[in-house]
Structures are given as structure tokens and as C-alpha cells.
């Protein structure tokens, strides 16, 4: 019953009862949801981080600090409930008709939106740390030469913080990749290779969580699911490792 490694990763054939375990649709779904979440969350985090570190008055910070903390502390199942109540109907009634499509709303798009909100506090906190680590003299010197605040941000801050920004996004990506319950609740869970954001998907963590019940009753099923968990672990650790490395190095040199 041994299966070659590449067969498991790249096969589209998922029929546990006859011993076919192709993880490809799940990996692709995971990538779709994760990258969509990052596309939504990335710019929001970047602009807010600049706003909060460069422009914001104290009262804004006083409001935003607890907001970020609470958002970071909310359990994923709460995001899931919110996704089912608000995001899924919104996608089905407002976003899908924009593209001339009809869906139930349980799509990759809903998963991406929910995930984006979940990783925002996480990415934002790292970005704020990154921007704070850049020495103030650097910006002050440029300001004294007559540059506007935005020019300083664009030409000095962003350039200096570039590796930090990329690795913050990398960490957000790995956080989003492993998120389970919230995504599972809104993404539809259909074993298909998705071709667009308005189709249902079935990411890796959802696969593991949904099938743990019957995995001991079908031969090799448990091994296949544990392999899925292993793939997840390797990808997340890889992303984490590289991003953390860059951030550690950045804080050391400054």
C-alpha cells in the first residue's frame, strides 16, 4: 500500500475508500485562501502601521491599542460564526453578482475575508515593531532637509523596513495557512480544484479536522491525514523560519 511521495502531493484523485489519497486539490485550495487573505490584509496592515507609528495622535492610539488586542484575542470559532452570519451572505448577495455569478456564499472568497481579518492584528503588531525599530534620526534628518512626511515614509522608511515588511507578510501567510475552524465553517468543503475565488474549496486543515472521526475505520486513511498534517507543519515552519530569521537579523543590525 506504499505510495510514492509525488503521487500523494500531485494526484487529484481523492477516494479514501479505494485507497487513493491525492492531496493536490487541498493544497491548491489552501494556497488560494491564504494568498487571497494576504492580498486583502496586506495593504490594510501596511497603511495602518504607518498611520499608527507616524501620524496618529495619542487618542487614536488609545482607541486602537485595545481594538488590536481584543481582535487578536478573539477565538477562531467566533470569527467562524461571524463569517457565517455576515460574510457568507455578503459574498453571495453583493460580491458574486458583481462578477455575474451565483453562489451560496460558502466560497474561497468568504474564507479569504475571514482569514484576512484574523491575521490583521498579528501582522499589524509585527509591522508596528518593525517601523518602531527604525532610528528616528534618519527620518528627522530627511525632514529637516525639507522633505514632506510622506516623502520620508516612501523613500526612507519603506526602503529601510522592506525586509521587515516582507517577513511580516510571510508570518501572516503561515498563520493563515494553518487556521482551521474559522475557514472550515465558511469555505464550503468541496473536493475540487478551485479555478476562481468564487468557488468552494477544501483547505488542508479543514480536511484534517473534518475527517478525524472516520480515519481509523478506513485502512491507510489515518496515515494520509497525518501526512496532510505533516505537509502543513513543514510549510508553516519553513515560512516561519525564513521570516523570523530576517526579522531577527533586522533588529540586530539596528
Amino acid at each position, binding site marked *: 500500500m506504499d505510495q510514492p511521495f509525488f503521487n500523494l502531493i500531485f494526484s487529484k484523485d481523492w477516494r479514501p475508500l479505494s485507497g487513493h489519497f491525492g492531496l493536490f486539490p487541498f493544497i491548491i485550495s489552501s494556497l488560494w485562501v491564504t494568498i487571497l487573505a494576504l492580498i486583502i490584509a496586506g495593504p490594510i496592515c501596511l497603511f495602518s502601521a504607518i498611520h499608527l507609528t507616524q501620524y496618529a495622535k495619542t487618542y487614536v492610539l488609545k482607541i486602537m491599542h485595545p481594538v488590536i488586542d481584543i481582535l487578536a484575542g478573539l477565538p477562531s470559532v467566533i470569527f467562524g460564526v461571524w463569517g457565517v452570519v455576515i460574510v457568507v451572505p455578503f459574498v453571495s448577495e453583493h460580491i458574486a453578482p458583481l462578477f455575474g455569478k451565483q453562489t451560496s456564499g460558502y466560497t474561497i472568497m468568504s474564507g479569504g475575508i475571514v482569514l484576512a481579518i484574523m491575521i490583521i492584528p498579528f501582522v499589524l503588531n509585527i509591522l508596528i515593531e518593525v517601523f518602531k525599530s527604525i532610528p528616528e534620526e534618519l527620518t528627522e534628518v530627511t525632514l529637516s532637509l525639507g522633505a*514632506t512626511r510622506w516623502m520620508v515614509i516612501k523613500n526612507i522608511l519603506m526602503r529601510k523596513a522592506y525586509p521587515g515588511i516582507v517577513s511580516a507578510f510571510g508570518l501572516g501567510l503561515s498563520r493563515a495557512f494553518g487556521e482551521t475552524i474559522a475557514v472550515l465553517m465558511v469555505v464550503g468543503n468541496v473536493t475540487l480544484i478551485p479555478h476562481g475565488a468564487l468557488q468552494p474549496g477544501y483547505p488542508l486543515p479543514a480536511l484534517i479536522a473534518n475527517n*478525524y472521526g472516520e480515519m481509523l475505520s478506513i485502512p491507510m486513511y489515518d496515515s494520509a491525514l497525518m501526512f496532510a498534517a505533516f505537509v502543513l507543519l513543514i510549510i*508553516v515552519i519553513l515560512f516561519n523560519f525564513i521570516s523570523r530569521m530576517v526579522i531577527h537579523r533586522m533588529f540586530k543590525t539596528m
Partner: protein
Amino acid sequence: MKRSKLRNAEELFFRGVMIISTSVIGFALFLILWSIIKRGLPALSWEMLTQTPKGGFYFGKEGGIANAIVGSLYLASGATLLAMIIGIPVSLYMNVNLHKRKKLVNSIRFLLDVMWGIPSIVYGAFGFTFMIYFGMQSSLLAGIITVTLFIIPIMIRSIDEVLVSVPNGLMEASYSLGSTRSETSYKVFFRQCISGVTTAVLLSFGRAIGDAASVLFTTGYTDHMPTSLSQPTATLPLAIFFQMSSPIAEVKERAYASALILTLIILFISIVSRIISSKYQKNKIKL
């Protein structure tokens, strides 16, 4: 003249974008809380908080989720306690005994940060294989052990963040008075960072009570009140999840109410940790 006008326009535009993105974050939190409260409040009742599920509970008949609330509290307290017993000495050791070995401590921090990033479902799968290896059933104990593994990196890193800020002079003063390393650790450093430890503990507790993916395999689910460590136990996130996937409207209503209960617990924890950290801030010695 023209160039500077263009510059100003650019600056104004991007400031607008920044303010919008910041408000989006605030609005998202508001929307989440508002939708949970609006849906959950009408379904919330005293019965839900105090009773276990009766027959027909999952068809919309009477009963409550007291078993899940109590189970979650047991699970989170047990895991937090275990993580504290391991986490506090480790972080003190990293900052006092290994004070001179910056490189080693930094690599430990690096590893803990990577561990923090591992998804909880992987911890759950790990706990599950562990359980099968030892021939254990899904139980409260297995859940506590899995969640402990999951929150240890959070606990150590948050205590560590506070310990780093303890001034160097304090350690030197303590040594010069003839105290040993462990006395310095537990009597000087620990007292200095009690507020930090409390916040770390509350943070870990919040994580432990809210996580669903790691307990899904290990703790199982039951309709009875938890009475022993070796029995399966219901947890609040799973109760929400299972009720939410029901097609019956009454059961869904209860899912919203359960979500409201969990949210209130999390908000309570967050407020308490804020109060504690601001109250103890003034007792700290600053150099």
C-alpha cells in the same frame, strides 16, 4: 510651485488611505462584536448557562451548555497551570542564569517564536498520535496536555518580554548582597514582573479556552458534566461549532448564544489583564 502642489496632493491621498485602513480594522471588530451580540442576546437564557443537554437538545428541545462551559474552564485552567509550572522557571532561567550567553538565549527565543507559529491543528494531530500510542481514550487529560504544549511558547515568550526589561543593575545589586542565582530569580526578578506574568497567564488562558482545533481530536465531546480527567469532555468552541453546523434554527440560535458567552469570557479576560498591567506598572523599579 506645481511640484510641491503635486506632493501635497500625494501626501493627502495616502493619508486618506491610511485613515481608511485604520478605520477598517476598528469597524471589523465592531461588526464582529455587534453581530455576535445581536444574534446571541435573544437566545441567551439562564437555562443555557446552568443545564446540561437533555434528550432532544440537538433538535431544539430544552437543555443548556453548562457541560461545555465547565469543561472549557477545567481544560483552560489545567493547561494554564501546567504551562505556568514549566514556563516561569524556563523564562527566569533564560534571563538570569543564561544572562551572559546572549547567543544561546536568542536561539531559544527564535525556536519558541517558530513554535508559536505552528498551527493548533498540528498540535492536535500530534496529541492524537500520542494518545493512540499510549492506548488512551480521548479525555480531559489528553486535551490538557495538548493545549499545554500549544500555549507553552506563548507563556514563555510573554514572560520573557517583561523580564528583558528588568534593569541589569538590579541583578548586580542582588548578587553583591550575596544572594544565589535562584534567590535572584524568584525573589527579585519574579517580583519585578508579577504584572507581566499575570498578563502572560491571562493571555495563555484566553488562547487555551478559545482554541478548537487542538481539542477536536484529543478531548472529544460528551453531554455529561466532566467529573474525571480520564473521560471525554465538552468544550465551548466545539459546542459552538457543532451547534452551528446544525440545520435546525433553534439549535443555531443557541450557537449564537454560546458564541456570545465565549466572547464575554474573552472580553472579561482582556479587561482584567489591562487593569492588572496598569495597576502594577507603578510598583516597578526603573533605573
